[in-house]
Each structure stands twice: as structure tokens, then as C-alpha cells.
């Protein structure tokens, strides 16, 4: 075929295809960006409430009715940072908390480092706990002084979710806080995230803390000393992404009582509720999302009044992936987890019993989180092709561009101004300028990359599902503890 022929066929095919998809893609972008904008507005309200409250409440002292908290740290081969990390956790300001480190069958010197640093001695076998564990729990150690509230549980390797479940079993306090070994917490983190449990003890069952990127900042002895924008653009884009979709998104959702995702990097739950729900699902890839939905379903099924809340104040800082390879794996896994969980909980969609979760939250996740990459890809592939074959009007392409990425930049800017207004954590002017530039890069460049990775994850899952259909155990732990 000669070029003119190819051109003609291409033109016809794309004209038809574009005629069908164009309105869908157009509407989709308009809706998703508008929904973000609505979330920004909702979040602004949430922040305002939060800030006023912070101003007028006496200094947070965790107060009269503070419940005990078990901080659960699953760790695998974290020899280099575990001691610093545990010291920082033990030093968190809270009237009653213990640290439970679960050694997930580490092969490095992590356990030895802990034993030496805290002078650990073994306890005789303890009660096994309520969540069934497939792996073997091999021992429990405590500091010899009997006062330092540290518990180290060792087990054979079986992945992060089981490690957390082991920690929940071993926990001695009524509230559990699940964190990653490399998370950096604000000294006040526990006081802040348990505040909802104190303020409304009869109803609050779970709380999510804001997780933000720490790359490029100064960290001393497990504490954030000076916050700065990261030096790499990849990390900078993630700073803006965390801001827009996590901080703003979750504050917005929580303000209408539909918080569907409590991040695994820092989530706080009532222990009895998690146990009643059966703990984390070791077979799930999106285990934090899955647990959150399971708790929602359980509480709604039981017809109990409950609340899941989100604490917008930054409390937990984490190193975000700084290389394409790691980021790609992370995003691919997140999307796979999202798909598998949404699919498993499809029964909650549009059921009266599940209220806003079933009518608003979940449909939103289906439409704007799960299918987002598909529709973006249509836009990204078809429009340039259409232009090439003359099937797409240049003006139309520009319009689409404006509605998709132009609008998105505006929304991210809006999110940023809300953050600047409420928390203004970055105090250098330079960081602000970098943030403005990163906002543009996040929407043009970075976001398109993640689209591919997310599709990869989804595809892997769909394909994997067919291959291992009916097999109970899937190899979901290739990531170790990333």
C-alpha cells in the first residue's frame, strides 16, 4: 500500500473511532478534573476546620482519655535503619504506646542489631492471637530492663501483610498504628492521629494520616529536621502528586464521610475491629485498600454507626521512589491492587446498605481511578494519530488538550494554593518556585508515564488471573518490603 492509501484507510478508521470515543474522552476529562476541583474545595473546608481547631484547642496533650497504642513495624532486612527507627518510635510523644517490630524472616543482621541495641531477651511462647498466620512465629523478645516498651516478634518469611497480622496478634494495646520501617514520623504523630479516637470514641474505627515525600530533606536520628523540595524531578512530581491526590483527595473524601483508602504507610485502627474483620489479607496486593473496604463492609453489614477519618496535618514522611524502575513497579502494583480489590468488592456497588460508599465512593474509584489510564491512553494515542491522518481537527485536539492537561494543571495549582494557605510547610521561596514548575511537569510528562505503568499492572493482573485461576496462593511478595 502506498502512503496515500494508508492515509485514506487510516483517516476513515480513525474518523469513525474518534467520532465514537471523542465525546467520551472529552466528557471524561472534564468530569475527572472537575471532580478534583470539587475535592479541592471540600478539602479547603476540611483544612480550615482543622486549622481553626488547632488554633483554639489547647496544645494537644492527648488528654484525659487517650487510648494505648501499639505501633506495628513490619521489617524485612532493614539492618541499617531499624535501630534508629525504633529509637525514634519509642521516643514519640504519647502517654502510652509500645513498639512491636515484626521481623519477617530477615536474612541480614537486623535481629542481631536489635538484640544488641536494646538488650533483648526471649519471652516464653506467648498466646498466639486471633488472626490465623500461615508462617511460623519463632519467638518473642523484650528488653531486659522490662520497662522499655518494645516487643520484637520473629517469624518465617511470608510477606508484609502476614508480618502486620503477626504484629496485630502480639499487640497489647487497643489501638494499632501500622507503619513502615523507613517511615519518619513527626514527634506528635501519635497524638494527632489518635485524637479522632479520643474525640469520638464510640464511633471512630480507623484513621489515616497524611503521608508526604521526604526526599531531599534533612533527616537526623529518624526525625525530619529540615524540609526541602527533592532534587530529582521524578521525586518533585511525586511531591505534587501526593499533595493533589492523597492529601487533597483524601481530606475531601473524608469530609463527606467516604474515606475509602487508609494508606499502608501510616494507618491507625481499633485493634478489635481489625481482628473482627480478620486482619490484612495476605493474598491481596492492595492490602491496605482491601482492609479499609472490608471494615466499611463489615460495619455497614452490622448496621453500626462508625467513622473513618483522615488527619490532614502532615504526620508521616516517606522516601518516594527516585528511579523510574522502582516507581514503575510501585505504580504497576498499586493499580493491580486497585483492580483486584475493586473487583472483589463489586458487590458493594449501588447497594442501599452501603450508602455513600456504594453509591459515590466506589463508583468514583471505578470510573476515575481504575479506568483513568485506559481513557488517557485513548487520548494520548488516538489524537496524535488522528492528527497525522487528518482525521482529527487541530482545533479539536487543542480543545482536548486544554480540557485534559490544561485544566489539570489549574486544579493542581488550586491544590497547591490550598496547601500553602493551610500548612505552608516549605518555607523557602526557592522551593515554592520549584513546586510551581513541578506542578506543570507532574501533569505533562510524569502523569503520562504512570498511565503506561498502571495499564501494565492491570494487564498483568488480568493475564495472571487466567493463569492461576483457582490457585489460592499467588506470588505477590516479589517486592519484599518496598
Amino acid at each position, binding site marked *: 500500500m502506498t502512503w496515500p492509501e494508508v492515509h485514506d484507510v487510516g483517516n476513515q478508521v480513525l474518523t469513525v473511532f474518534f467520532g465514537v470515543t471523542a465525546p467520551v474522552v472529552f466528557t471524561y476529562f472534564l468530569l475527572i478534573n472537575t471532580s478534583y476541583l470539587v475535592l479541592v474545595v471540600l478539602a479547603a473546608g476540611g483544612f480550615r*476546620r482543622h486549622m*481553626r*481547631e488547632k488554633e*483554639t*484547642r*489547647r496544645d494537644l496533650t492527648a*488528654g*484525659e*482519655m*487517650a487510648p494505648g497504642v501499639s505501633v506495628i513495624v513490619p521489617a524485612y532486612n532493614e539492618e541499617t535503619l531499624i535501630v534508629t527507627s525504633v529509637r525514634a518510635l519509642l521516643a514519640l510523644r504519647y502517654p502510652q504506646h509500645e513498639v512491636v517490630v515484626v521481623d519477617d524472616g530477615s536474612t541480614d543482621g537486623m535481629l542481631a542489631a536489635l538484640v544488641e541495641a536494646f538488650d533483648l*531477651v526471649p*519471652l*516464653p*511462647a*506467648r*498466646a*498466639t*492471637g*486471633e488472626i490465623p498466620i500461615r508462617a511460623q512465629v519463632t519467638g*518473642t523478645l*523484650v528488653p*531486659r*530492663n*522490662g*520497662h522499655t516498651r518494645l516487643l520484637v516478634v520473629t517469624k518465617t518469611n511470608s510477606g508484609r501483610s502476614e508480618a502486620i497480622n503477626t504484629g496485630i*496478634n*502480639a*499487640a*497489647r494495646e*487497643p489501638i494499632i498504628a501500622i507503619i513502615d520501617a523507613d517511615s519518619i514520623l513527626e514527634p506528635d504523630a501519635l497524638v494527632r492521629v489518635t*485524637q479522632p479516637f*479520643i*474525640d*469520638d*470514641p*464510640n464511633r471512630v474505627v480507623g484513621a489515616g494520616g497524611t503521608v508526604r515525600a521526604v526526599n531531599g530533606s534533612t533527616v537526623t536520628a529518624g526525625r525530619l529536621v529540615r524540609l526541602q523540595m527533592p532534587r530529582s524531578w521524578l521525586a518533585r512530581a511525586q511531591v505534587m502528586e501526593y499533595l493533589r491526590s492523597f492529601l487533597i483527595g483524601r481530606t475531601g473524601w473524608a469530609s463527606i464521610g467516604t474515606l475509602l483508602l487508609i494508606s499502608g504507610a501510616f494507618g491507625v485502627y481499633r*485493634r*478489635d475491629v481489625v*481482628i*473482627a474483620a480478620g486482619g490484612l489479607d495476605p493474598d491481596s496486593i492492595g492490602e491496605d485498600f482491601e482492609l479499609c473496604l472490608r471494615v466499611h463492609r463489615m460495619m455497614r453489614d452490622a448496621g453500626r454507626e462508625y467513622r473513618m477519618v483522615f488527619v490532614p496535618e502532615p504526620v508521616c514522611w516517606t522516601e518516594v521512589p527516585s528511579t523510574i524502575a522502582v516507581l514503575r513497579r510501585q505504580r504497576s502494583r498499586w493499580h493491580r491492587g486497585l483492580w483486584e480489590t475493586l473487583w472483589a468488592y463489586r458487590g458493594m456497588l449501588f447497594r442501599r446498605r452501603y450508602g455513600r460508599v456504594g453509591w459515590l465512593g466506589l463508583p468514583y474509584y471505578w470510573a476515575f481511578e481504575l479506568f483513568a489510564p485506559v481513557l488517557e491512553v485513548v487520548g494520548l494515542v488516538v489524537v496524535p494519530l488522528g492528527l497525522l491522518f487528518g482525521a482529527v481537527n487541530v*482545533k*479539536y485536539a*487543542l*480543545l482536548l488538550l*486544554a*480540557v485534559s492537561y*490544561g*485544566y489539570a*494543571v*489549574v486544579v493542581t*495549582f*488550586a491544590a*497547591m*494554593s490550598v496547601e*500553602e*494557605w493551610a500548612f*505552608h510547610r516549605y518555607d523557602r*521561596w526557592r522551593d*515554592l518556585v520549584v513546586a*510551581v514548575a513541578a506542578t506543570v511537569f507532574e501533569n505533562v510528562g510524569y502523569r503520562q508515564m504512570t498511565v503506561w505503568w498502571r495499564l501494565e499492572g492491570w494487564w498483568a493482573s488480568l493475564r495472571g488471573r487466567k493463569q492461576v485461576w483457582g490457585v489460592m496462593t499467588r506470588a505477590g511478595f516479589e517486592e519484599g518490603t518496598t
Partner: protein
Amino acid sequence: MTIGGFVAVAGPGLAAASLLMACAIVALKLHRTLRTRAWEHRVAPLREAVLLVATGEDTEDGDTLSELAGVRGRTRRDLDELVVRLLGKVRGEAADQLVELLRSHGVLDRATRDARSWSPVRRERALHLIGRCRDWRGTDVAITALEDRSPRVRAQAARTVGRIGDPRAARPLLHALRLEGIHVGDAAEALVGLGHASGEALLWALAEGSPRARTVAAHLCGVGGVRMAAPLLVDLVERDPDLTAASAAVSALGKVGRAQDHGAIAAATVRFHPQQLRRAATEALGEHGLALAVPVLVRLLADPTSQVAEAAARSLLALGPAGRAALVEHAHLPAAGAELTHARLTGVAV
């Protein structure tokens, strides 16, 4: 409109919006920095005088105070802002002096008026100020505000009545816990501030309050040693449909319960109850301190719910020689063994 028209509008529109937002961010930061700086500049000349008053270094006759009281206009607003800020940071005589200054400027009168303003933000601010100044003249206003339309105003009112510390507020505060807004933690702290005078209100709340009011009241009856509450607490343990309230009640009963309340506490450890209640009840048996509890706790040592078993071990340890003997006897059970080892590490003789 044609597509071309759309593009012509959307493109520049979005570009303008982006630019506007970017400017807004810069402006926000600039505004914050400049505003703070300008304000500091304006109050700088007054600062020393205010510090003199706030640290109690003013002359006997209060010369500086009267000088500051005479300030007028915009400077006066700045001055009041500074004083309110300092007020949260000092106490004692120094704080009284600052309140006096605000009163002489009519700030407190204004706050009492603002507490009835149509704007919830104003009402909230006014109540906050009244609380900061611990102005007892604001008691009635604050009590009324406990039933305000706005949840945020109600939340602030709870803190305000706590700071003023007038015991009359106890019952309205507990009653208002049925509404959204007031934080249980704030209410508890406020009621602790109201002290013994709130005892009667606590009893009322146990009998007739909302679930949240019952939870707070039960907790405070336990902590504050309100022994009269025991019969009401037994009632909650046995019948309260709200699990949190029932658990708080059983914990309190462990602290203030009479000998005859042992049965009620022990019954709450029975297996068909939810874990939260059982654990609280098991701990309460140790706190209650009757040797009668030993056989019950020994049975619980083997409980499949680990936190209940461990709580039983801790309670046995707390029960003195009889409890410890039982614990040693059952040292083969995981919960007992772990607790014994732990006790030996902490230096408890067992």
C-alpha cells in the same frame, strides 16, 4: 458555539487561570510574610510595655497598664491582638493583668456581644476569647452556646466552659454531647476542670445521657472515684447497647465498685461478649482487687482471645499473693508464662 470558538476561549482561559493560581500562591505567601512583618513593626513600640505588664514588672500603681489602656485606634487593635496571643502563654498574676487590659479596652464586652452574632466564625472566636480570659461573666453565654446551631461553635463552647470552670456548666455540657461537634476528649478535660462539683451531673449522664455522655461520665466516675456511681455503672455494664460506654463502665467499676459488684464485672468477661468489653472487664477484675476473682481469671488465662488471656495474667499479678500463686501454678499457659517472665524482668518478686 463552534469548536474553534471553544478553543479560542478555553486555551487562553486556562492559561490565565493557571497564571492566576500561580500568582495566588505567591501572593498568599507574600501576604503572610508581609502581614506578619507589618504587624510586628506596628506593635514593636508597644512590646516592651506589654512585656512589662505580662511579666508582672509594672509599677505598684500600674502606670504602664493605664498607659496601655489609653491607646486608641488601629494601634489598639494591634495591641489587643498581641495581648490575646500572650494570654495563652502566661498564667497567674501576669495573666490577670492582661485580662484587665483587654477589659478596659472593651474587648470582653464585645466578645460577649459577638457570641450572639449571626456569623458562626465570630461566635467561635468570641467564645475562644472568653475562654482564654477565663471570664466568668461569659459563663451563661458559653452554656447557651453548647446548644449552638453550628457544631464548631458547640465544640468551642465546650472548651470555653472548661476553662471558665463554673460547675453549673457540667450538666448542660454532658447533655450537649448528644449533638455532633463537641469532642469527647474536650468534654472530659472540661469536666475534670470543673472538679467534684460535676459529680451529680455525671450520675445524671450515666442514667440518662447519650452514648457519648455515658462513656465520658463512666470514665470520669472511675478516675475521680465517684463511689456513688457504682449501681448505675453496673446497669451500664449489663445493659448498655453501646459497647464503648459499657466498656468504660466496666473499667470504672473496677475502680469504684463495691464488693457486691464483683458478679457484674465477672459476668462481662463471659465469652459471648465482644472482645473490647471482655478485655476491659478482665482488667477491671484485677483493679477491683477481690481474691474472689482468682478462679475467674485463671479460667481466662487459657482464653483464645490473646488480649483477654494476657489481661487475665496481668490482673492476677495485681491481685497479690493469691493471684501470683495461681499465676505460677499455671505458668505452662503462654499468657501466664510470658507475664511471669515480664514481671521478673521488671523486678516484681514472683
